[in-house]
């Protein structure tokens, strides 16, 4: 794997990238994705970039710019039409299907619609993520309360999702994403359904998670958030990588 990676490296314009912090966690190497429904209009066109361990990145762009495709490629829900994607030195384009679950155990995912199970309590929802990857009861009993304390929901263990506010539900979903301590956390519009103040709280939480060394990638529409936080910004426009900027701003005229 490393040899493949070093072969790929000279093709990358490393100097223009953000300052490297250790090994790249994610490498996109001339990635193009074309959906069969729209053969003329690639969802992603020749995207090349690297993301390093411990970074906090905003992925911005209008609807249809390719943000979701970018995320689905990372979790290997879909494969690129051409180009190579590496996550933690593993080539996703040649990865065997049975390995995919193990890839996903290393990637936490948070979505706009929370994706919580309504018939399970907060504790059970978070525990579910550990249960289904075969963790022991002991691990579940110690890690779940700990991660719920981290997201500030220690007092809601036995509540059901519909008894919580939107912000609290999103915290549960973040707790579920990080309870297995993945090195990479991907958030697709995590504040899309929330009011600005609640969003601020969620972003603070993501920043705190980032400070523990987790790489955080946030796809968002939230201009104010991006402008305030001044983190690395990757901008996509109709499938093209238009901007990759350290300490950037949202930058699109709405």
């Amino acid at each position, binding site marked *: 794997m490393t040899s493949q990676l070093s072969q790929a490296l000279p093709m990358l314009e490393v100097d223009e990238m953000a300052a490297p912090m250790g090994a790249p966690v994610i490498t996109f190497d001339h990635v193009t994705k074309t959906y069969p429904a729209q053969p003329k209009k690639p969802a992603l066109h020749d995207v090349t970039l690297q993301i390093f361990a411990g970074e906090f990145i905003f992925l911005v762009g209008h609807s249809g710019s390719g943000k979701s495709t970018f995320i689905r490629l990372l979790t290997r829900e879909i494969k690129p039409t051409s180009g190579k994607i590496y996550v933690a030195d593993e080539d996703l384009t040649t990865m065997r299907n049975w390995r995919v*679950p193990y890839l*996903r155990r290393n990637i936490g*995912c948070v979505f706009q619609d929370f994706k919580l199970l309504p018939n399970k309590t907060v504790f059970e929802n978070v525990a579910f993520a550990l249960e*289904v*990857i075969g963790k022991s009861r002991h691990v579940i009993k110690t890690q779940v309360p700990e991660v719920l304390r981290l997201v500030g929901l220690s007092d809601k263990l036995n509540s059901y999702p519909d008894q919580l506010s939107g912000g609290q539900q999103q915290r549960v979903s973040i707790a579920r994403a990080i309870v297995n301590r993945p090195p990479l956390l991907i958030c697709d519009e995590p504040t899309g359904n929330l009011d600005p103040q609640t969003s601020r709280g969620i972003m603070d939480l993501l920043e705190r998670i980032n400070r523990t060394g987790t790489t955080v990638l946030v796809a968002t529409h939230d201009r104010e958030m991006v402008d305030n936080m001044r983190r690395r910004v990757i901008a996509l426009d109709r499938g093209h990588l238009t901007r990759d900027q350290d300490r950037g701003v949202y930058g699109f005229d709405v």
Partner: protein
Amino acid sequence: MSSLFYFFKESLQGFARNLSTTLGSIITIFLSLLIIGVFLVSGSIVERLVSSIEEEVSITAYVADDAPQESIDGLMAQIQSIDGVASVGFTTKEQALENFSNSMTTNPEIIEQLDGTNPLPASIDVDLADPQKVDEIAASIEADETFRSICDEPDNPADSLKYGQKTVDKLFSVTKYVRYLGVALVLLLVFIALVFINNTIRLAIMARRKEIAIMRLVGASNGFIRGPFLMEGALHALIGSLLAVGVLQLLRMYGIPRLQSALSFLSLDVSGNTYLMIYIVLVVAGLVIGLLGSAFAMRLYLKV
């Protein structure tokens, strides 16, 4: 171990969630396997009957009413000299009628309808020492010139010879069609059971759609996602096949003895080992149907 427990828990929840379809698939499996079982049991009864007839190694040669006594005596001496023949006896027309009326005591009206005439031919009864040679000896009697001239049906001497093998052949020509019909019916039933299990598991998958999406998201292995559904299909099949085995056992204990007393001239006895084999076959077939049905459903509705 803990994940097996988890599969079991989840599949039991699946039972409760889709009670009516679950019952439906259990009942179809139960009925299919019961019918398969009944076929197997009756098949082995017939097989026992056939082999007991095959073991009956006597040949009856019917002779014409007007055959001269010296030809009959000559033929009997001739047959006695054939290698493998133990003894030769003679049944007159009168004795034949008496034997017939003795075996027909339950419906004497058949005898009354004869109106005093005697349609039964006299016969030479040949007992064999070596059952293996029955065909050979029958052929040499058939080829005998004297027999050809005095046999009951001179046009076709072979018809005047009766021995176990012929009865067996006739029985086989009937059982062959019954067997084809049985196989077709069984295949149809297996197909229906597969469709039912397939549908039940499909509903179980639909009901757990959200959970499956989250399991994929957090990296549950494919085996872990599939496990509960395979377990559910296998459990349906197991319950169905155990029910079928139970009903067959009840039939064996209460049904067969009643049938036996009604058909006292046939032996319906089949050894306990045969029953055990049939039960094992049914349970294994049920498990295969259950696992296949859920595997089909997962291929169709659970793309991992």
